[in-house]
């Protein structure tokens, strides 16, 4: 009764020894160059920019209180590390705290929205209003009403970060394949089973795309809130360091703090990309290597 297999187990099993023709060799070489270039070229551009920055400072004799040389910025970063590291830690706490709440809240609200049309109709407009009102305009109010500085900062960063997760996940939960939905109905799946086995996996790529945006936004939200709060106390973050340094015209420290913020942003982006890749690489089109 069994049917003979068609096709091979996998393409990867093909022996290496097959003679490659010139066309294939060329394509393989191009692929390799592209893979290396993807990393090397941006790094090279960065290095060139830093060198150019340094050269411009020297050639034009720019004073260090206007534009410090990269070397000086780096020295300041090391010298002021004890102050900057505390600020960095505070900013990271707000950023990741907000990202966590935004993820949980966005996901939970999205699930709630798909369970009941009425809940979605009632609350979605307010999510949109929160999103379209610039955070810088609401932040002073929030920071006045909320006693704890940390809580105020968290709320501001959360407001900025949660919308992409909410709207992306809602879209994802609603775009489960119709035939699969019918199949689930046919087999008498409960609401919970349909959510667990069909809607959530379908929403995964959308959710992850939202998470990638939210990661960057929660950092932006944290920095903006810190600027508005403007405190110089124990809870002060990198934004406060920039403000303070600017009052004193301490340009090297401003640049050092700025570089730390940028690196944090890049790191968050790379982490999200990695998570997304690990979760999707087995099945989703976006993460698949196409075999040529």
């Amino acid at each position, binding site marked *: *009764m069994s049917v*003979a297999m068609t096709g091979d187990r*996998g393409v990867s099993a093909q022996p290496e020894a097959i003679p490659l023709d010139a066309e294939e060799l060329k394509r393989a070489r191009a692929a390799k160059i592209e893979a290396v270039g993807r990393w090397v070229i941006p790094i090279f551009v960065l290095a060139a920019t830093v060198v150019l920055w340094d050269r411009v400072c020297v050639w034009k004799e720019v004073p260090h209180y206007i534009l410090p040389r990269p070397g000086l910025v780096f020295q300041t970063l090391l010298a002021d590390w004890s102050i900057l590291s505390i600020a960095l830690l505070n900013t990271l706490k707000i950023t990741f705290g907000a990202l966590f709440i935004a993820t949980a809240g966005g996901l939970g609200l999205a699930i709630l929205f798909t369970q009941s049309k009425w809940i979605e109709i009632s609350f979605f407009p307010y999510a949109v209003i929160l999103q379209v009102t610039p955070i810088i305009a609401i932040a002073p109010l929030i920071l006045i009403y909320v006693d704890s500085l940390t809580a105020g900062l968290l709320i501001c960063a959360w407001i900025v970060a949660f919308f992409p997760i909410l709207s992306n996940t809602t879209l994802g939960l609603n775009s489960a394949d119709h035939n699969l939905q*019918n*199949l689930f109905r046919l*087999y008498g799946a409960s609401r919970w089973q349909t959510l667990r*086995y069909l809607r959530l996996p379908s929403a995964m790529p959308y959710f992850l795309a939202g998470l990638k945006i939210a990661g960057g936004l929660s950092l932006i939200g944290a920095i903006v809130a810190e600027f508005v709060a403007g405190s110089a106390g124990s809870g002060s973050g990198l934004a406060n360091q920039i403000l303070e340094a600017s009052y004193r015209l301490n340009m090297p420290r401003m640049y050092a703090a700025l570089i730390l913020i940028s690196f944090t942003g890049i790191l968050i982006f790379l982490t999200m990309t990695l998570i997304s890749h690990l979760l999707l690489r087995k099945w989703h089109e976006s993460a*698949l290597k196409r075999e040529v």
Partner: protein
Amino acid sequence: MTAMVEKKMQETPAQSAPIISLKGVSKTFSNGTVALNNMSLDIRQGEFVSLLGPSGCGKSTALRIVTNLTGPTSGKVEWPQERANQKEHELSFVFQEPTLMPWATVFANVWLPLRLKGLSRKDAEDRVMEALQMVGLDQFAKSYPRELSGGMKMRVSIARALVTKPKVLLMDEPFAALDEITRFKLNNDILNLWETFGWTVIFVTHSVFESVYLSNRIVVMAARPGRVVNDMPIDAPYPRDESFRTSSVYAGFCRDVSGALHAAMGSGEEH
């Protein structure tokens, strides 16, 4: 197996009780399309019925009504052999597309119907592997759908339909997107499985040749409005194989059914 086939041949379908009974089913969509008009049809236990008709004549709609995915506008579907309040029927559906979950392995896809009934991976394992063996894909349990060819995906879909050991199997143009060789092969597989397990099959198709090869009864439908215009028995003995495909009996049936289909399409155009 021969005993079973003989039994099937003796027992003309008209004698056994219907398992599904459509009574005056009509379906009008909200945009005014009359997809089905007063369709009555008795499907008997163990039959292999093909619904054959031009595009848009309501074949898919009929299947969706039988499975209760949509309700009829008027008329009703009865399952005379089941308890009155039984909600779920022991049926499986094979869609035109494989309709697999891309994030799940072949194993998990076939496991799904059992999983929804609360069976753990361990409890379901034997049955899942058995179903995969029936379609010859047990080697591919750990693969993802994207790693399979179109025909293999369709077989996974069939395995998923088989894993619940259904009494009734509904198939909506399951092989329409496949090449002829794969299609013939899957035709044979389905026939073999049908003879072994004694299911009732409702098979929707565009193809006269496929319907004659597979079924012991062909219901010809016409469009605008969708309705049954002809109900033809195909009394050729099973098992059928390649020699049947080239026989003059087969050619004769194909000619008759083609004629009926053309008549149906002609009458449809008059409207």
